[in-house]
């Protein structure tokens, strides 16, 4: 799948895919959420999704505001519950494409139980979970994904908790498609989101996005550039990660401890709730 843009299409995409009256976005300078939106729309365009038949669902938080910018049916729901609403939409009308925007706090904190069960049920949803390590909308409090030792207004002496690896959770639960990318690279996320949309069953694309305003500046990253540079220094492709783990020197292996794996972690086939429910209805229908 090529991610080369055809000339002029970007301007066209803006006209056709954005709710123009909602712009400019509410996002701060240096925030990666606009990029997530941009990449998603390119993926939507690549897959050729009909926006009239696509519903964007979100919960509460900065990332959940993304639904409002897309020129399609959208549902901005309650905190943590996007997957419940999305499940209802998809189960009631399996012909609709349902894409969920959520955040690390929304999707894996308050909404963690729904994440777990939506994957277990294998609802045919594409979930784009933006992880910025913080509760940005409320001012940057510590989140389930905040690194141990990180600082925030609610962890003024450093976070004592262990962060959640959302992708590992999704993998363990058997999600058919699981990937993680930083927003600092455009083409891989576009490709992954497109693959996620095309996948039958649950797909999770975790997008690592900087929050210079609420997270970075409290954790030694002042200014936009260092915030974005952080992802280059602290991510490693999953293949490379595994190579180093197996064959790397002790120094190389030690260096991995500071890094997060990125890449496509899981790409398997598994019958979705929709498929199984349709088969059940066929069996018992009057």
């Amino acid at each position: 799948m090529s991610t080369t843009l055809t000339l002029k299409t970007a301007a066209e995409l803006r006209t056709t895919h954005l709710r123009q009256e909602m712009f400019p976005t509410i996002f701060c300078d240096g925030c990666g959420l606009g990029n997530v939106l941009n990449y998603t729309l390119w993926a939507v365009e690549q897959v050729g999704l009909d926006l009239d038949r696509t519903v964007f669902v979100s919960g509460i938080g900065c990332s959940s505001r993304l639904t409002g910018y897309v020129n399609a049916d959208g549902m901005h729901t309650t905190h943590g519950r996007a997957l419940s609403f999305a499940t209802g939409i998809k189960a009631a009308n399996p012909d609709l494409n349902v894409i969920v925007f959520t955040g690390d706090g929304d999707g894996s904190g308050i909404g963690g139980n729904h994440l777990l069960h939506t994957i277990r049920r294998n609802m045919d949803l594409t979930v784009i979970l933006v992880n910025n390590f913080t509760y940005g909308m409320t001012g940057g409090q510590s989140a389930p994904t905040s690194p141990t030792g990180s600082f925030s207004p609610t962890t003024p002496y450093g976070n004592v908790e262990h962060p959640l690896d959302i992708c590992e959770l999704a993998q363990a639960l058997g999600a058919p498609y699981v990937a993680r990318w930083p927003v600092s690279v455009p083409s891989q996320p576009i490709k992954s989101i497109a693959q996620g949309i095309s996948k039958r069953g649950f797909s999770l694309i975790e997008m690592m996005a900087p929050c210079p305003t609420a997270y970075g500046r409290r954790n030694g990253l002042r200014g936009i550039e260092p915030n974005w540079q952080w992802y280059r220094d602290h991510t490693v492709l999953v293949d490379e990660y595994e190579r180093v783990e197996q064959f790397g020197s002790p120094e190389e292996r030690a260096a991995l401890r500071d890094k997060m794996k990125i890449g496509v972690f899981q790409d398997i086939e598994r019958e979705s709730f929709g498929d199984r429910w349709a088969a059940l209805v066929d069996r018992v229908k009057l």
Partner: protein
Amino acid sequence: MSTYRERIRQALGAKVQFVQGDDACAYGAILAGCTFFAGYPITPATEVAERMSEILPKLGGCYIQMEDEIASIGAIIGASWTGVKVMTATSGPGFSLMQENLGYGIITETPCVIINVQRSGPSTGQPTMGAYGDMMQARWGTHGDHEIILLCPSSVQEAMELTIVAFNMAEQYRTPVLLFIDGELGHMRERLVIPDDSEITLFDRVRAESMEGYKPFQVGESLVPAFAPFGSGYRTYVTGLTHNEQGLPRTSSPAIHDKLVRRLAAKINDHTDDIVRYEEFYADDCDVAIVAYGITARTCRDVVEEARGRGIKAGLLRLITIWPFPEALVARWAERVRAILVPEMNMGQIYHPIREAVEGRCAVRLLAKIGGELHTPTELLDALEELSCQPR
């Protein structure tokens, strides 16, 4: 090939059955055209989900068991936006969990029906015992200013009939409608006669007719906006934030918030003539009245006859619609009677709006009973006798 209505009959079975109140709620939903149910097991409401899980796939609908009650109400609200009729069922603890999304249903004007088969609280309380302890939670459980519709049937037959009414009101006013029974009524078996289609009136939400100039939350005289389901090309944005007529968030404008929240209240309050349902016995010849609802009102019906046999001019106002509260109706009764007895299976919840409506026109006595037992006829008779001696 049979029609959908014929298949409903086939799925429901015999016209006359001996079933529980929970079953009756499920039957009412199916008759109303409900095709989507999401729920979570909880005593004493589980049988509603059991019936729905059995019937819905036979009719090509969808039953989904969610991970909790928060997800259950979320799923039905999501499903409702695809244009189908939806329901969930729960009991007190689950209803507590649903409160936030109930408010979401109200502000997003989403038709849905929530059955609450009440049990004693607070907390886990008495799971298998009936109670009416959630009446005020129904009114004010979700945060912020709002109106809500709550219906309380008194029998298994009425549970089915009012479930149909609940769906109609949800569709007509585009709002969540609550139907509350209790553990006793939910698990009590009675004769149920399934009405013919000719006896059933159904209302479907008003659909948007043209994309031209359409705004998803713009209203006309009815104060209820026209509905465009997800996937119909209207590209509607739905948010729990304060929004303008286009549905777009406008969170800092006092005027827009004021207009929206007042309209949401008015669309219900302006239609109380249609929404308020009740039954009166001896309204014109009554000295001491009972105002009751739910299963308690059944006992009261017999007690009134018994009391009249003993020379007490007793009457009964059975409230069917609890919210919006029928203030004018209660005030009319207060004009005519010496005293009002309010028997409740809680420590006095509807007693308060009754006193507010009575405004001192007559005495109001609460007969509260908790613990799971119904009021006995003797208890009610004794209270009536005492009140009949009350000076005017």
